[in-house]
């Protein structure tokens, strides 16, 4: 819990490193030749090993060391990044995760993984170009390099230690180290915590220039480094290597003086956290609560000020109102994280699914920069896993079936996110066989979910998939088919005040759309009065407000429909629903709300205006009252209930359907 616990910090860091490594590996599977990716993976492994050892995760460090060694060979071009190798490292990476989390991980399992890795490396090696074999003494000639480097003054304070750097250089070959003391100030001016020394190393090695640069890979952003070839045995190779390394250092051949200062390579920067601050999520939540209370207190102040005649009080109240709104908006942004974080996890899932099902599956993602509240993102992870599994397992056909159906052998799953108003819409689309309606119906009848021969709309039929205890897979696979997934998905999404829509075209594929509110904490609401009670309608769902004319009122008593620009819209009299037991106001209003394509009118007595709504959840006592999704505290200290629009809309649609059926 404590943010001062270094082990916990390491675990978090390891988590991120492993994620980076995993992403890199998965990308490598598609672009085996990409050097940047190889470097990124290597850097990740290297850092993991280093910081693992520093925090006493010795088993992790030792294990990672082997993977790093294997990957080093890929990096040097001795071994291609074959599919087997990537797979082996991916498996090894799971083991590392277990070690990092301190879970029990058996030694033998680790050993087996390493052996698999070894086999993958060996298997791949012979295909590698013969010339790349620097391990043998007959390889490229020895080159003598002059390496001069100095660290920034605050390097020691930042934890950089020069000695290991020198040790690493020594490992590359024969070294002669001299210290450059030119910059050391007079004793009186010397700050012992600052680093004023430089080093000049004459190194004779068979390793290429890259290897030397890699020694400094984690400090290169801030340091001065010059590498100069004194005598070279294989000049053409040096040229080539210099070019390959051009992204890291600005090399100026043939003297090969590289100086890297400022202009940090973004990747290295991101790897070390840059200038971001890690904050425990619960502190953010606390802050959010405070902001919520502030917003409530502020609206009280505004009310008091509006009633008073004191203009200076009114000025202050307005100022506070503006500040509170800004603070709220800032707070929202702080809690927002790009959905890429979530989508990234599923690439591995698809990789594993493809392996387990024997299908070829490609995952594409869109709109990864769409941002969502952090809590929402976390709670979306499980439902999305279910949905993607379902798409891959039930939706997509085997390559043979696909070819027979005239489709490309590779199945596609697309994960897309976009923002629409105060909602984010996440869609999972597959180009598989689509939902077999007849089977869904048969299954639902078997399971007693619907009566035999019940008349259902297509949408209702598809919604059955999300009913508890429903599963159409004839064979239960390890992936899905136990019928526990989809209803959990639905519950979770509804818990987020979201909704699920499904469309499916036989033979073409299916699409599931999740509509999720941007945040769980504060919304803009429209406050209305029904009888004596005040209620809040989420403003994002409101389409328009119209007056219910007395003629319409009378005419519609039998059929609750109003005509809105030539369209019939069903409406619900909230007064009846809430049983206020009073005579309605003479001028009732209709608030038309919608969830995407379905609309319903809500008849209220009065529209009170918009209201910054801090959402408070209702206790379990009121969980069964589906009409309300929460409550909020008003400026005068009273409580208003928040209407659950999606529930009301579906209720309105049901009512409409019943009326139509009756005639």
């Amino acid at each position: 819990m404590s943010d001062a616990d270094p082990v916990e910090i390491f675990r978090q860091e390891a988590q991120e490193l492993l994620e980076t490594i995993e992403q890199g590996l998965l990308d490598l599977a598609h672009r085996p030749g990409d050097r940047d990716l190889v470097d990124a993976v290597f850097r990740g492994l290297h850092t993991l090993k280093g910081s693992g050892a520093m925090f006493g995760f010795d088993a992790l460090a030792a294990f990672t060391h082997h993977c790093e060694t294997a990957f080093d060979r890929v990096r040097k071009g001795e071994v291609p990044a074959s599919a087997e190798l990537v797979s082996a490292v991916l498996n090894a990476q799971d083991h590392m995760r277990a070690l990092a989390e301190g879970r029990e991980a058996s030694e033998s399992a680790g050993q087996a993984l390493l052996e698999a890795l070894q086999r993958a490396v060996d298997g791949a090696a012979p295909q590698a170009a013969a010339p790349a074999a620097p391990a043998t003494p007959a390889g490229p000639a020895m080159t003598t390099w002059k390496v001069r480097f100095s660290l920034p003054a605050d390097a020691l304070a930042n934890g950089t230690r020069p000695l290991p750097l020198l040790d690493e250089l020594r490992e590359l070959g024969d070294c002669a180290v001299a210290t450059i003391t030119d910059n050391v100030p007079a004793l009186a001016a010397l700050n012992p915590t600052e680093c004023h020394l430089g080093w000049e190393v004459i190194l004779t090695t068979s390793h290429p220039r890259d290897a030397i640069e890699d020694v400094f890979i984690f400090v290169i952003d801030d340091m001065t480094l010059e590498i100069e070839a004194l005598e070279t045995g294989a000049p053409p190779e040096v040229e080539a290597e210099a070019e390959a390394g051009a992204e890291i250092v600005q090399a100026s051949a043939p003297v090969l003086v590289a100086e890297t200062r400022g202009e940090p390579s973004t990747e290295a920067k991101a790897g070390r956290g840059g200038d971001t601050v890690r904050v425990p999520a619960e502190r953010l939540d606390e802050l959010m609560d405070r902001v919520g209370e502030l917003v409530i207190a502020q609206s009280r102040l505004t009310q008091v000020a509006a009633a008073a005649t004191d203009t200076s009080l009114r000025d202050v109240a307005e100022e506070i109102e503006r500040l509170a709104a800004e603070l709220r908006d800032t707070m929202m942004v702080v809690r927002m994280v790009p959905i890429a974080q979530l989508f990234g996890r599923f690439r591995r899932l698809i990789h594993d699914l493809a392996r387990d099902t024997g299908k070829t599956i490609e995952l594409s993602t869109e709109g990864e920069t769409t941002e969502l509240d952090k809590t929402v993102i976390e709670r979306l992870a499980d439902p999305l896993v279910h949905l993607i599994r379902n798409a891959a397992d039930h939706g997509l056909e085997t390559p043979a079936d696909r070819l027979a159906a005239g489709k490309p052998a590779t199945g596609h799953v697309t994960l897309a996110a976009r923002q629409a108003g105060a909602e984010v819409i996440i869609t999972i689309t597959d180009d598989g066989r689509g939902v077999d309606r007849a089977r869904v119906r048969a299954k639902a009848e078997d399971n007693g979910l619907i009566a035999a021969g019940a008349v259902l709309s297509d949408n209702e039929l598809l919604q059955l998939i999300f009913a508890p205890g429903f599963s159409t897979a004839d064979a239960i696979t390890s992936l899905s088919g136990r019928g526990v997934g989809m209803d959990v998905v639905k519950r979770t999404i509804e818990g987020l005040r979201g909704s699920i829509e499904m469309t499916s075209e036989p033979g073409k594929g299916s699409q599931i759309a999740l509509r999720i509110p941007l945040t769980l904490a504060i919304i803009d609401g429209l406050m209305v009065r029904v009888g004596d009670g005040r209620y809040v309608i989420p403003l994002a769902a409101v389409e328009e407000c119209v007056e219910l004319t007395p003629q319409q009122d009378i005419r519609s008593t039998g059929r609750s429909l109003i005509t809105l620009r030539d369209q019939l819209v069903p409406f619900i009299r909230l007064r009846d629903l809430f049983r206020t037991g009073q005579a309605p106001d003479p001028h009732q209003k209709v608030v038309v709300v919608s969830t995407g394509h379905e609309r319903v009118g809500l008849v209220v007595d009065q529209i009170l205006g918009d209201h910054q709504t801090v959402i408070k959840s209702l206790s379990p006592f009121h969980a069964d009252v589906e009409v309300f999704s929460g409550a909020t505290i008003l400026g005068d200290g009273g409580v208003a209930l928040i209407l659950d629009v999606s529930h009301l809309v579906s209720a309105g649609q049901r009512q409409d359907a019943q009326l139509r059926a009756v005639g």
Partner: protein
Amino acid sequence: MTDTAQTETGALQVLTFDLQGETFALPALAVREVLDVLPETAVPGAAPFVDAVINFRGRVIPLTDLRLAFGLERGPVTIDSRIVVIEHTLNGDPTLIGLRADKVHEVTTIERADTEDAPRVGLRWRADFIRCLAKRGADLIVVPDLDQIFATRGGATGAVIPFTPS
């Protein structure tokens, strides 16, 4: 409701209050605050036992009425009416809950020896709603079993308004 409210000597620290002339008691440790009557917000469609919410220091908490669980009349609000706010574990989460009381007396100690289980017969209330009965002089104090009462919504039977077209 709980053994934490009991001292080693077997005494129970309780807050006593009146509901329609009957005296009830709740473990003092569970009680958060005793409030004067606040404006309530009715929750249409909720069980009568818990038909409203109140604003308790910036939180929206449910307001329950034990009188309904014990088949008592819901009397008018008087100058003595109070709301007792308790913390109770609902579905595993500690939840703040308000209880309507006609009058709140005091925090007192009930000796274990003075209590007895609710008799199975001869009681006009549901026996499972009563944790124990305590004698104090001529008075009888009812210690309600809140777990049981809350779990059954005060014994309400589906008071949720079904959605019917008007």
